[in-house]
């Protein structure tokens, strides 16, 4: 079977975010980039399926040149080959146009059985692109998966999914898209030999220009700002502006045992009378 894993490069979770000079993007100077944490689960799940059932795992990444590093991380974890879609206008491309691009590439591949992706891109704070890909391909989806069982003979996948207030189990026929939740597996680390090998694995670079647009069944209207449905006007860094009223002990910062009762009463009063919240 053939599995495509959609991977996204995101700033490190520890990264400090600042606006760039144009004010509608982030300052990438000195930023550390990682494989989106939820995509690690998708890559791991694909590799696990490959190890138990046998499968070809294709890593599909979209983004500028720097995204190659993330794609290589996924290859080092066990992906067989990779596709890197580069769109020069990527920065102006919204989720709708991004999904169209990814979907058209997967459609051109023809015989994909399963598409895996993380449930959310932590930079965009959204999981909409993989779902839009499923819609473009007219295939079923199971999102926020905590368990995936593939039945290759029946060409189905059984997925345990998180829903509001519980879980449910879905059975999807191939081809299908599944997005992964934390807890589904323990992603392996890319080993040093894995990283060395990743550099030699087949990599197809697709630069989106007028020539190969036709192959993808797209026109320039599908790309960049023209293909997008919204644009980002501004990025602001919220200033933490809180009252910092920390109740301390009489003798030190720490409230001592004998003072706890009075402090508890004081906080309750503040929450009730000043903050009017309880």
């Amino acid at each position, binding site marked *: 079977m053939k599995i495509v894993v959609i991977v996204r490069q995101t700033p490190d979770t520890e990264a400090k975010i600042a606006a760039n000079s144009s004010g509608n993007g982030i300052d990438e100077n000195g930023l550390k980039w990682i494989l989106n944490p939820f995509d690690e689960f998708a890559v791991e799940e694909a590799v696990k399926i490959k190890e138990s059932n046998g499968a070809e795992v294709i890593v599909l990444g979209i983004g500028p040149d720097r995204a190659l590093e993330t794609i290589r991380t996924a290859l080092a974890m066990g992906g067989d080959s990779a596709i890197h879609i580069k769109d020069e206008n990527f920065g102006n491309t919204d989720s709708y146009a991004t999904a169209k691009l990814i979907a058209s590439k997967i459609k051109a591949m023809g015989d994909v059985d399963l598409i895996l992706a993380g449930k959310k891109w932590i930079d965009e*704070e959204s999981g909409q692109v993989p779902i839009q890909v499923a819609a473009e391909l007219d295939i079923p989806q199971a*999102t926020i998966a905590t368990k995936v069982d593939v039945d290759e003979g029946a060409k189905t996948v059984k997925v345990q999914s998180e829903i509001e207030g519980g879980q*449910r189990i879905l059975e999807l026929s191939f081809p299908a898209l599944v997005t992964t939740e934390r807890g589904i597996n323990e992603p392996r680390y890319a080993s040093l030999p894995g990283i060395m090998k990743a550099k030699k694995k087949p990599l197809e670079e697709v630069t989106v220009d007028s020539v190969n647009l036709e192959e993808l069944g797209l026109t320039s209207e599908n790309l960049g700002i023209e293909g997008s449905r*919204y644009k980002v006007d501004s990025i602001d860094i919220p200033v933490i502006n809180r009252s910092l009223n920390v*109740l301390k002990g009489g003798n030190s910062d*720490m409230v001592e045992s004998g003072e706890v009762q009075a402090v508890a009463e004081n*906080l309750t009063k503040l929450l009730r009378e000043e903050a009017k919240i309880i």
Partner: protein
Amino acid sequence: MSEIWVLVDTTADGSIRNVTYEVLTAAVKLKEKNSGTVAAVFLGESAGAIESDLGKYGADKVYKIENPGLKEFNPSAYASALSESIKKHSPDIVLGGNTLQNQDFLPRVSALTSGGLVLDAVDLDISASSTLAIKRYRYSGKSISGMTFHDVKPMIATVRPNTFKPNESSGAGEVVQEAVEIPAQDNVKILETKLVPKDRPELTEADKIVSGGRGVASTENFQLIFDIADSIGAGAGASRAAVDSGYVPYEMQVGQTGKVVAPNLYIAVGISGSVQHYAGMGSSKVIVAINKDPDAPIFQKCDYGICGDLFEVLPALTEEFKKLS
């Protein structure tokens, strides 16, 4: 402006979720700026008499898209049904709460209708070019982005729960029955649905939340968190450190790789207050920190705090909270 649609979010037992009224309030505000009609849109097997409640919060119309194929939530079927109605009535704007269900099927609606979609808005306005302008958090709560839609229809957005305070405003609640054809769903089977009875409000919608961190130190000790949460009807959450230590399950995790919450009151107990945790709860209205380390970063990000031993502070505070009711 033609119509502004608001999706009716219901719980498993069919009652209308509060977030529906919050989004209706936001829709009424948009209507006041730009005229038009606010319509509530129900998708499901059978709506029941929901129109008077929806009318009370400003719904001029109530579309009832009722179909046996919508009995259980299936994103493909829901997307197909809503898209068909959107194509028929061409609303300018479609809004819903940022619930898991809406996050699951609205991306498909945007693809099927060639509409735009922005999730988890914390502010909605009409732009200079008469399209929808939205503010939302990006980069894990570390930035707020202003975004505007191009000239597209429909402009679809979900709204973060607890962002708008529901405001009563009279709407006629005129019922419009919508018949839709739902294509056969042969490629999806729902084998089993397990709803876990919840003793406490769901984190993403809770008005108050108490979360425990590494400082709580064990699964047994989390009872202290549950006790104080129950004393004020709050949801119970946890930091990543507490989840990774195995004290409580992942569903309780608040933060960058957990749930994003925005209650009126967030009490962080034994939580140091990492950037990643703040990313998940930084838009809470009032933050209270209880920690024994005076240098914990959370004390630089809170409204109120107690620097003390949580095992002494929590029981005393729980007793005080109980006296309030």
